[in-house]
């Protein structure tokens, strides 16, 4: 049986991991490569790195981080943030990432999805999408970009379906309302997207306790759950979260190496 994935997210700014609340007030929490190694050893099923560097040197810095991560961790990882062209995608894939994630740039220029999928295969192109609850929209959710700072006229479901048609192989759905709150994932939104696309959906934003993951993987129908605060400074370890999920009947990968028999 396919297991539910626990994806650990690291926001990287100027080569350091940071964590914000509702996309604001970021604080440094450590070296991304060191953290990635620790999460790999603990049994993270996948990692995501978002480059939130604002400076012009961003690409060089991130590329170096990706190369160092690739040399040390042997589970899949995705890189996002500032990917604006097929060349940006290629640079990250060649540096060792399995997948690249597009968000704002894909809304502004949807063709980048078609181009990336054609050049590297659908499985390499991930759609990151930030959703804001909005009763005025047909699906009840509006797409926001620029890390939540700019609202668009796009309906969430309409956009995700278009992105799937264009060739994304996975969707990372982040709820702006829930992000960083540790109050739980946006279950209705996650379920809505998961039931309306045929590619895997990774739920993001709001995880604070194991119960939140259980809810989103079961009731929210997510294929994977993204976590950050919980393990960066929430007092949780990945084995602990997975034990809680397994106890709730959710299939997870717990045998991760010779020592775990």
């Amino acid at each position: 049986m396919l297991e539910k994935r626990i994806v650990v997210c690291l926001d990287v700014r100027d080569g350091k991991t940071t964590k914000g609340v509702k996309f604001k007030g970021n604080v440094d929490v450590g070296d991304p490569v060191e953290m990635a190694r620790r999460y790999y050893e603990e049994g993270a099923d996948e990692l995501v790195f978002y480059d939130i560097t604002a400076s012009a040197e961003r690409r060089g810095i991130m590329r170096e981080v990706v190369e160092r991560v690739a040399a040390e961790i042997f589970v899949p990882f995705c890189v996002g943030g500032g990917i604006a062209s097929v060349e940006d995608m290629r640079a990250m894939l060649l540096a060792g990432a399995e997948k690249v994630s597009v968000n704002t740039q894909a809304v502004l220029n949807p063709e980048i999805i078609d181009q990336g999928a054609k050049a590297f295969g659908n499985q390499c192109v991930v759609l990151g999408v930030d959703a804001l609850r909005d009763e005025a929209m047909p699906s009840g959710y509006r797409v926001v970009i620029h890390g939540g700072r700019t609202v668009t006229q796009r309906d969430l479901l309409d956009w995700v379906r278009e992105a799937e048609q264009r060739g994304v192989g996975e969707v990372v759905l982040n709820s702006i309302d829930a992000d960083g709150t540790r109050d739980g994932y946006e279950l209705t939104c996650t379920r809505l997207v998961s039931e309306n696309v045929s590619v895997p959906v990774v739920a993001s934003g709001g995880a604070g306790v194991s119960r939140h993951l259980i809810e989103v993987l079961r009731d929210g129908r997510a294929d994977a759950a993204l976590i950050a605060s919980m393990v960066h400074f929430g007092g949780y370890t990945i084995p602990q979260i997975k034990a809680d999920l397994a106890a709730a009947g959710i299939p997870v990968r717990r045998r991760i190496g010779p020592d775990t028999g």
Partner: protein
Amino acid sequence: MEVAIVNYEAGNLRSVETALRRLGYEYRIATRPEEVLRADKVLFPGVGDARAVMEVLERSGVAAALRERHAAGDPILGICVGAQVVLERSEENSASCLGLVPGTARRLPGGEGLKVPHMGWNQVRYRADHWLFAGIPQDTSFYFVHSYYPDPADRSTVLAETEYGVRFASGLECDNLTAVQFHPEKSGEFGLRLLSNFLAH
């Protein structure tokens, strides 16, 4: 020992390379038939469209080199698309494949709650006591990303099986060729162990 990693332009080989470096093996990226012919072990990884992969392999002469190595009983490990194009054909764009193992690569049926591509960690049940899985517990999970699966014509070539809507051959063995549908280079410490088992065998 010289290990060749077959490169057919489409695939990202970085993760296989870094895995080999971690395991302490020298390797060479092989794009020409002579590089495939002289290596001690051949790793044949891959992502991409089966038909596009086959076009590059046939045009470069690497397909002929792989057939020659297989006929001579030399060690080859196919990975992912590399485990599909060793068959005779693929349903993906009706591709004609290498024909090293009788059978067809078929599209995953998907269905209720079963998304395609099959992406993530899934359990692998392998033929008991097989050297490729030495030191790896039965039913260990490996990382998969694929929309097609190997459907060998001869049951005796099934080395491992995985369940995803269908029970499919996630591992193949035919003479000295072994192939896995999952990505050992992305399957944590047990994945590294599998690669190391192949290289040390």
